[in-house]
């Protein structure tokens, strides 16, 4: 039986194998042996080569067959996860300039309002409360120096 491998899994396998090849290529420029023992490049080269082989082998030999019980997870549309990932990345990008509180607040608000379409008032309240609790616990109690925004928190 010929398996049809989903495009996404092909990309994932390529990421694994590509990382392996890249590692092997960089490691090839490092010293391999020093005196009695392997030097700094030996194991990275080995790992890289192994990963390149295993990445390809796992993709083609072991791709989960279509139509089994876990179908739901594999066939789920990619739009929403990508949107969530985007919101997360935007929030992280904002931490240094807008401060932890504001960046996380806006990021959560976006997820509640735009992605999940939840009521406005509750969304604002839950986002603000969550960001506040995290700021108090990590920054005030545990002394973690979260970046502050131009308004000082």
């Amino acid at each position: 039986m010929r398996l049809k491998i989903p495009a996404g899994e092909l990309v994932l396998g390529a990421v694994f194998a590509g990382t392996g090849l890249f590692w092997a290529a960089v490691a090839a420029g490092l010293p391999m042996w020093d005196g009695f023992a392997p030097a700094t490049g030996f194991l990275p080269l080995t790992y890289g080569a192994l990963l390149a082989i295993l990445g390809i082998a796992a993709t083609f030999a072991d791709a989960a067959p279509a139509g089994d019980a876990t179908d739901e997870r594999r066939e789920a549309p990619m739009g929403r996860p990508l949107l969530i990932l985007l919101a997360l990345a935007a929030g992280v990008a904002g931490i240094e300039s807008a401060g932890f509180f504001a960046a996380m607040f806006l990021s959560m608000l976006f997820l509640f309002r735009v992605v999940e379409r939840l009521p406005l008032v509750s969304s604002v309240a839950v986002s603000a409360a969550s960001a506040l609790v995290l700021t108090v616990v990590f920054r005030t109690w545990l002394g973690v120096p979260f970046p502050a925004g131009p308004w000082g928190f």
Partner: protein
Amino acid sequence: MSVIQELATGLAGALTPWNMLMCLAGVFAGQLVGALPGIGPSAAIALLLPLTFGADPTSAIILFAGIYYGAQYGGTLTSVLISVPGEPSSVMTSIDGYQMALQGKAGVALGIAAIGSFIAGTLSTIGLMLLAPPLARMALAFGPPEYFSLVVLGLTALAAVGGSVLKGLAAGVFGLLLSTIGIDQQTGVARFAFDRVWLLDGVGFIVLSVALFGVAEVLSSAGMATQRPITKIANLLPSRAEWKQSRMPILRGSLIGFVVGVLPATGATIASFVAYITEKKLAKDPSRFGKGAIEGVAGPESSNNAAAAGAMVPMLALGVPGSGTTAIILGALIMFGIRPGPELFDKNAQLVWTVIASMYIGNVFLLVMNLPLAGLFAQLLRVPYSWLYPPILALCVAGVYSQANSIEDVWMLVGFGALGWAMMRYEWPAAPMILGLVLGSIFENSMRQSMTLSHGSLGIFVTRPISAVLLACALIAVLAPAVARWWRARAHI
């Protein structure tokens, strides 16, 4: 018997109101920092250390020890409820504990974790009390070749954690590869850092585990067409049958955790991996693992707690650190004018026995605190997931940032979170990748150290008895399934 007498004086010291309060404060603080990803017991102890200067050293060490083992209870909470490992040692709990939570058994998972941790904590404290000197000698017998062989045994688990063998191996090798980023311990020179200062220390366990479990789970679950149903919380405490299932895993986990914890270069994280693999290999139906097997919670959770007590063995019996956290406790002892050394047990008997006694008390506190909390926190899962996941992401960001106060770590969280989501989607197991990252540096360093010692000969791994036994175990672990299959196939003919 003098142990009884010593323990009695210890108990008398530990049961004073002030020391009881310190013990309670310690386990409570430990529980809190354990539940928060990123911030761990080491950070909490270091934060509290200046406050205790000038205080009674015994009370301070009771407090610090409480934070240490309390954190092992706390780490379970976020792992089970939201699949965000609070500590690296609760990564394995995220696998089956979270599945149990999805099936409405969060209370059971947290309950069995608390009971298992209590039993493991108590048993290993007994072990610490009775066996510390011989165990400490065993720890000293572990040189580079022994660690190498132990890690080889651990690596045989790569393929066994997940479903597909090839995918498990690929993920494991990816983890090993990630462990090579940063400053090479043997030369002091960086590799794969691409002239980025923030890569000099490599990828943190917490960054990778929060990304692959926490963020990936959010992306995966929130993205599903059908929203996750609101789970009904069936029962809060383990049933008789569940207890029966967990009994042996708890005992085995305690033993594994204690022994692995005693070894200075390995700790609670590796102990929890070994316990999980052991349970999976021993199970009649290993396919239940990863789908909410209670043994997959009971084993690792007992094991990481036992490891915390195990790490106290080299500290108290030899005056050498048994883990990162005990290294800080040792530093604290020096600040109090106590020189940790092989004579700590004799010279500071009162302190040592009071701390040991306080560990029994602290474990009782933790059990009493956690059983009602298990039910309470399980209610969290009644909240619809769309309300839950944005704050979970914010918690992941806060936790990862707090670990090294580094924004680059948070970017790695986003990147590996995306990778983890793709892996989850196509069923590439994430746990081997973390196992590879955890074991990678010990594997490489012990191999290079051993070969330097042996002047390049590989014989050192088989001529030293402990190393040879461990390698034999690894060989059995690899061959046993194949032999079993062959045997079964023959029987069918």
